């Protein structure tokens, strides 16, 4: 499924979608940036509660399809602009990480 389709699915809400047609192929959950950095892969949906601007760098370097902020977390100030400029998609959801990941796994 594309990032745009996930953003439109019930329970998810777009924060910014500069690359809406990117296809999601799997996912990774984690909040420790070094951990995510070494393990998340191209085209995955990265589910996290981390909201600071460094998630944009990690997402760029891992080339994930989308950052999914769980637990109703909102990005910190400036993150949306950075993500927009770098072509990083961000979606948010009130679901906890486990539920968000479980649902994404059935949708893709």
């Amino acid at each position, binding site marked *: 499924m594309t990032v745009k389709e996930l953003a439109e699915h019930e329970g998810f809400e777009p924060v910014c979608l500069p690359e809406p047609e990117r296809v999601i192929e799997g996912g990774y959950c984690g909040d420790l*940036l*070094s951990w995510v950095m070494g393990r998340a892969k*191209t085209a995955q949906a990265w589910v996290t509660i*981390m909201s*600071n601007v*460094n998630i944009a*760098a*990690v997402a760029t370097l*891992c*080339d994930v399809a989308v950052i999914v902020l769980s637990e109703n977390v909102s990005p910190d100030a400036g993150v949306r602009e950075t993500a927009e400029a770098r072509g990083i998609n961000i979606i948010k959801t009130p679901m906890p990480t486990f539920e968000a990941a479980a649902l994404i796994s059935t949708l893709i």
Partner: protein
Amino acid sequence: MRRAACSIQAGSSETGSDMSESVRFRFNVDGSNFTTAGQASVQVKKNLRELGIPADAIRRVSIAMYEGEINMVIHAHGGEAEVIVFEDRIEIILSDRGPGIPNIELAMKEGYSTAPDNIRSLGFGAGMGLPNMKRYTDDMKIETELGKGTTITMTVRF
């Protein structure tokens, strides 16, 4: 404020035996600004893509360099990064004038970190940086002197 500045240079390699052409990228890594941390790595990734470097090598360079760059910001008040692209490998040289690493063996252990709590709350300080750098590169050398600084040289072959 000092921004991450990049200069690109093309020239032949310095090592006498290896005469292959190389491309160099140089960056200043700002040690006072967390919001720009990782900028040099992001730029290098872009440059390597444009040069047509294999995706797996770009990924390994990105991970290793990002960890090193973040370390310079967290632990060493910033520093300099240089990336040299050869025909068959990429060399990453990170140098800082920070406090140095007192015990390299300990620092290399997964989970070992001296990062303060405010850094941890940003998602850093998992103690995975140096181990990741070693894991994702073919060669890694740490030169460090207490009170003087640290230079880390990494090679990724492709």
